[in-house]
């Protein structure tokens, strides 16, 4: 069966090579329809072969077939009722399997495109499919020709006994216990759907350059796929953060680790890409932006894969170095940007677009600055992530950039960005005069003042006291806050951020309210019905605005849970009834237990009661697990959530002198999570396909097109 899997990879590689060849030849010959169709069929063959290979691998996991080396190394010994899920998630628990999953998802996207465009067979779609297949070809080759990436390897015979059990050094092989967490089951596949999907806008941007069609046809084809992919990328990032928060036990959810950054890079430029698409569709502008951003976003997707797989930077879970991956991905990054750059240079005039910058007060300017900030953010984070692998003559070469530097830059830039997002919907196209702006801003301002007032009350009663306690601490956490700048700057920035969040939320909410009021008046329907119509009919716009509100809520959450964390370590006597005070909470030690599980793992837990103002709000039982086979320990952190803050406790250890534990208070962290959910819902609304939205747009050569061979 291992050989069969390998054979399927070979078929997929061959099919994608043949598809690229026949699509290209079909494009160049005048009677190429037959060849072109053959290229489409080959795309289905590649997707079919990869789908079967996935079935082969998954069945090997469910059948515990240890002759597959990958299964032997990544099977989960779990026996809980989630066991079947961990069998499935074994597929993406390791380097080879996740590469296979990435490639398979990409082949599905390619097949979907082929299916949607098969009837029109227009030059633009043919070339878009061709570029997609080039990427698919390189990925298939990357698996077949690099042993570390090859998922279909045989387990050496001496590691298996006659009944197929693992023996010797392989006896302790298996899935990392840290990956056996529900968030980890869904994090990789969502991320890979996002990664793979962002290949499609790139492929069609290159195709638009090849056929020299600067109309919005290619945007119409890839628009929803792009929003959909960006949504999944965002979901993947969110699930990764939840996993880091609940499983890794350091008390935070974002640490600017290279692998985290890797997923954030294309997400940032993706924001700019989506907004360029909007202008492209609605105003016939930002065309060069859209082309370049498609390429840069794709390059950053590959860079992300490259960072995790080439072993060039030290990270939480980077893989071992592998020269094939190194050169393959490096070449893909460089050629993606070069292809778009050279293509754009050749088609410069045709992709000029109708950009109207009359004034900095116009909507275009707000979109423009969104693009500038997101592009700079994406490229800057990318650069700062890989500095330690760069030679010393480059800025920061051979130096690792610590999270504090990322924070120092991200905070003011993020707040500036939130202001732009907050103000943009109040602006008119081209220019906005003061009177109009005031008329639009009046009522939202009242709302913003109310929200800001509430937030400032929380700031004064909870956040500022934490700052004052932390900044005088000699601990690492305290020092980091003290080093982040003088008190007036640190707190001023936080207050500005809360203000930006309030403005953003109030302004955007007001759009829904005024929109629904106008519609209700014009159509004589109720306010509720009008609001519902706006949400369900104008989905791209409503979804976008919901996402904006989500961003505003996230910003408030980030300010609380990243800038005003209370963090201290306590050692208490091991006598039940001992109490200690943490910020506004009183902890009471109730007792501790030691358990040995059936598989030999030892679990020790503490029982704590937590109360505030004399009223009990809950119990917590942080602990430690010691794994029998490896004698490694894992800290089992526990979280107690209140609406406005989380209490996060990790047990550090027990000695004769007492129990040591670390306690963190994470204010407003639920704003981050709930804002994120709203962001996803909004994006999902925008990505939802239009009913009966038939993609036959490309049948006629549209404005600005000089396509040589538009068919039908």
């Amino acid at each position, binding site marked *: 069966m291992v050989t069969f899997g390998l054979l399927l990879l070979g078929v997929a590689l061959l099919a994608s090579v043949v598809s690229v060849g026949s699509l290209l030849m079909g494009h160049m010959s005048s009677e190429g329809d037959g060849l072109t169709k053959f290229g489409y069929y080959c795309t289905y063959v590649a997707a079919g072969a990869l789908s079967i290979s996935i079935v082969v691998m998954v069945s090997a996991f469910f059948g515990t077939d240890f002759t597959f080396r990958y299964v032997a190394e990544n099977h989960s010994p779990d026996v809980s009722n989630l066991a079947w899920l961990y069998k499935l998630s074994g597929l993406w628990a390791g380097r080879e399997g996740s590469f296979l999953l990435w490639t398979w998802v990409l082949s599905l996207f390619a097949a979907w495109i082929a299916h949607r465009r098969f009837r029109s067979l227009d030059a633009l779609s043919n070339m878009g499919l061709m570029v997609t297949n080039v990427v698919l070809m390189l990925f298939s080759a990357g698996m077949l020709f690099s042993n570390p990436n090859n998922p279909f390897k045989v387990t050496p015979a001496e590691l298996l006994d006659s009944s197929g059990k693992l023996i010797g*050094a*392989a006896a*302790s092989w298996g899935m990392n216990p840290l990956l056996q967490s529900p968030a980890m089951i869904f994090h990789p596949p969502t991320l890979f759907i996002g990664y793979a999907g962002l290949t499609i806008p790139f492929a069609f941007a290159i195709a638009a350059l090849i056929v020299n069609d600067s109309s919005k046809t290619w945007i119409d084809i890839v628009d929803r796929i792009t929003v959909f992919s960006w949504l999944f990328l965002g979901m993947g990032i969110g699930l990764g953060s939840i996993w880091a928060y609940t499983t890794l036990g350091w008390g935070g959810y974002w640490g600017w*680790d290279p692998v985290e950054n890797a997923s954030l890079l294309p997400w940032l430029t993706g924001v700019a890409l989506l907004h360029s698409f909007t202008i492209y569709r609605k105003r016939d502008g930002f065309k060069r932006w859209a082309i370049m951003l498609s390429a840069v976003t794709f390059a950053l997707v590959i860079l992300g894969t490259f960072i995790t797989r080439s072993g060039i930077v030290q990270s*939480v879970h980077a893989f071992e170095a592998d020269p094939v991956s190194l050169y393959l991905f490096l070449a893909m990054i460089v050629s993606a940007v070069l292809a778009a750059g050279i293509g754009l240079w050749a088609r410069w005039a045709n992709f000029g677009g109708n950009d109207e910058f009359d004034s900095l007060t116009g909507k275009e300017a707000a979109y423009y600055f969104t693009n500038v900030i997101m592009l700079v953010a994406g490229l800057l984070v990318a650069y700062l992530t890989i500095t330690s692998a760069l030679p010393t003559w480059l800025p920061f070469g051979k130096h690792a*950039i610590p999270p504090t530097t990322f924070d120092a*830059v991200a905070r003011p830039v993020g707040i500036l960005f939130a202001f732009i997002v907050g103000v943009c919907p109040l602006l008119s196209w081209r220019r906005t005069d003061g009177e109009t702006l005031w008329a639009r801003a009046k009522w939202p301002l009242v709302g913003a003042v109310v929200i800001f007032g509430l937030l400032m009350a929380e700031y004064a009663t909870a956040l500022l006291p934490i700052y004052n306690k932390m900044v005088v601490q000699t601990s690492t956490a305290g020092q980091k806050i003290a080093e982040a700048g003088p008190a007036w700057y640190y707190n001023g920035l936080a207050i500005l951020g809360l203000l930006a969040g309030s403005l953003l939320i109030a302004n955007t909410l007001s759009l829904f309210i005024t929109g629904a009021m106008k519609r209700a008046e014009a159509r004589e329907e109720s306010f509720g019905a009008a609001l519902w119509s706006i949400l369900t009919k104008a989905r791209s716009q409503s979804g976008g605005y919901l996402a904006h509100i989500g961003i505003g809520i996230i910003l408030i959450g980030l300010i609380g849970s990243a800038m005003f964390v209370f963090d201290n370590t306590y050692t208490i006597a091991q006598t039940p009834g001992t109490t200690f005070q943490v910020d506004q909470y009183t902890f009471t030690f109730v007792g501790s237990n030691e358990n040995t599980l059936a598989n030999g793992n030892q679990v020790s837990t503490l029982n704590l009661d937590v109360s505030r103002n004399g009223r009990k709000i809950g119990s917590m039982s942080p602990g430690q697990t010691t794994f029998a086979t490896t004698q490694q320990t894992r800290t089992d952190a526990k979280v107690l959530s209140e609406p406005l803050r989380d209490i996060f406790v990790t047990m550090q250890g027990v000695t004769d002198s007492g129990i040591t534990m670390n306690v963190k208070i994470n204010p407003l962290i639920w704003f981050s999570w709930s804002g994120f959910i709203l962001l996803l819902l909004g994006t999902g609304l925008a990505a939802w396909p239009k009913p009966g939205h038939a993609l036959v747009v490309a049948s006629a050569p549209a404005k600005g097109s000089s396509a040589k061979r538009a068919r039908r």
Partner: protein
Amino acid sequence: MNKRARVRLIGVTLAILVAVGAMVYYTGGKQGAYEGDLASVSKDSSLVGKQVKVGGTVVAGSWDKQSNPMRFTIRGEKDTAQTGPTLKVVYTGTVPATFGDGVVAIVTGKLGSDGTVAATDMITKCPSKYESATGATPIADLIGKGASMEGKPVRTTGYVKPGSIASVGSGDRFIAAQNPDGSGTTIPVTFSGVLPNGMKDGSQVVMGGTLSQGKFVATSVALEAAQK
């Protein structure tokens, strides 16, 4: 396009770029840490007093999670022979969930003149499937832990002491030693199964089993993967 608007647009863009650049330059220059492998960092005296970021395997038994700040020793990740230099670390932050013997810890902090890193940041590498085969505790560390390890299932690695291999039924099957030449800590191994093909004097073996009254009762014996 309106010319004045264009000039302003470019002006504001440049202002943003300059401001971001200045922030990165200022904070990154102050806080950036030299990243190198453990051997080069421990030798390079010019790094003393500077921020460094270095990763290494936590030496078994060198740490105590309860002590605050926590102290431990790391050794080069590829230094399986355990002959290379080590670095002492003093760490003041929250200890990551997976910290423990044999885990790869990546620490960031100031290198002191006594060769100790005063770490302010630490992450532990996910022991992804790759490293799982190398997660065995060296026998010297295992025995060093003493009675607390008695009777617990563990994985350990050592070398076959030259001349010690015996046949089935003769009691101890071979003696595992800390070093390939048979020197250092040794322990007799009992095992009733078939010894792996190609096992010879000085071979590195990975064993699963338990410590029992000064012997290692093995349930599995395999050659270390790198030797195949």
